[in-house]
């Protein structure tokens, strides 16, 4: 085990009376990293920013691992933190871009995705925040409606509604892009 990981802090057992459950932070990190990174990439379209978001999210989990590991669904907590951080980043970027319009906005370091996929996420990025989150959690993270509802703190019905509205909103832009390419 790497020296940078915790030992007993990263290991915990389930509540008394239930089947013992041992969760290692290292295992959790390795299991969740790629899934979380794909979500972050879709949300930010910026490889460096996505990696930073994921790293920061895991740091948060690591700092309170003794508590997080005992949550019913640590994965949902992790994704919620990532979503919050991504939202904060967008808000902060919005302010920064407004502040530097004279010299031009910062150019993100895009991931090595195809132009078509990049365009899809760019369009998804223009959706209202809740719709954007629902789309990324559904398609990229491949979570169920109930799991998405858990992450977003709403009902599964609300998730379905966000997804429906998102697909409707995307019909125009994605079809238009296809026609231009064709």
């Amino acid at each position, binding site marked *: 085990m*790497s020296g*940078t*990981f*915790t*030992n007993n*802090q990263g290991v915990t057992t389930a509540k008394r009376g239930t089947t013992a459950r041992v969760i290692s932070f290292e295992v959790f*990190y*390795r299991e969740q*990293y*790629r*899934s979380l*990174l*794909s979500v972050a*990439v*879709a949300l930010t379209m910026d490889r460096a920013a996505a*990696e930073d978001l994921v*790293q920061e999210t*895991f*740091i*948060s989990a*690591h*700092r*309170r691992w003794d508590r997080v590991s005992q949550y019913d669904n640590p994965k949902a907590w992790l994704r*919620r933190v990532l*979503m*919050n*951080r991504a*939202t*904060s*980043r967008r*808000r*902060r970027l919005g*302010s920064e871009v407004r502040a530097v319009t004279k010299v031009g906005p910062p150019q993100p370091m895009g*991931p*090595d*995705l*195809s132009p*078509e*996929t990049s365009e*899809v*996420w760019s369009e*998804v990025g223009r959706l*209202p*925040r809740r719709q954007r989150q629902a*789309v990324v959690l559904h*398609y*990229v993270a*491949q979570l169920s409606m109930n799991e998405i509802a858990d992450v977003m*703190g*709403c009902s599964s019905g609300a998730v379905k509604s966000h997804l429906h509205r998102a*697909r409707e909103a*995307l*019909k125009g832009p*994605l*079809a238009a892009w*296809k026609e231009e390419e064709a």
Partner: protein
Amino acid sequence: MRTVEERLRDAATETREYAATHWPTPPTRMVTPAPRPRGWLVFATAFAAVLVVFTALPWLLGTGARDGASQPEPLTTPTTVAGPSTVGTVPDIECSASGAPVPPPVDGLPAPVAETRAAIIEAAQRCELDALIDLAGPGFITSFGGGEAENLRSWEEGGEGRLGTLLRVLAMSHAVVDDGQGGEIYVWPSAYAYPSWEEIPPEAMEELSSLYTDDELDLISQLGSYGGWRTGIDETGDWMYFVAGD
């Protein structure tokens, strides 16, 4: 022409494949935090240190009671050390939050907001500045001049700690305000949501009395609306600010 559903699925597949080529980067910043000292160990160490000082002081000053006629007064528990930690109830150390009321849970908050509020309360109650600062989102402010979350620490270290204020604010009623970008912010205390001082209802004003004296409230009222300490959490659970003034 492919449907929106197909394009989203293809984009998601490519994105997952892209992420799959990236093995987790070493979590270099995840240094293991120093183990929290056990309450009894801190107490024993502090007790021993104080005992040594009290015993040695008379000798050092040349007025020592070598005959044992003058004994130090019984020692009391050092003010900076409490008993063994009980998670969520008794802090290991004292800070400006010590003695502040524990805000009760609030019904009806969205889960992310309730969770962040509970985490803030727990961290403040336990005087855990690192944990508290970590809860602050990247855009978090403690002043309109761009004050960062680190101010929470510097205020404590400078003797003007605000963790107690934070707990008292979170113990008050809350309001939901528009963030101007289509989102909502849950704000404590609710007095902040009223556009004018005159509109603040008596019960909300009564709450402010737990934080301010009458003279202080008079001063704040001159701003025209409530501009005292307040804190906000957005609907996603992002802790956005803990500020005073305007």
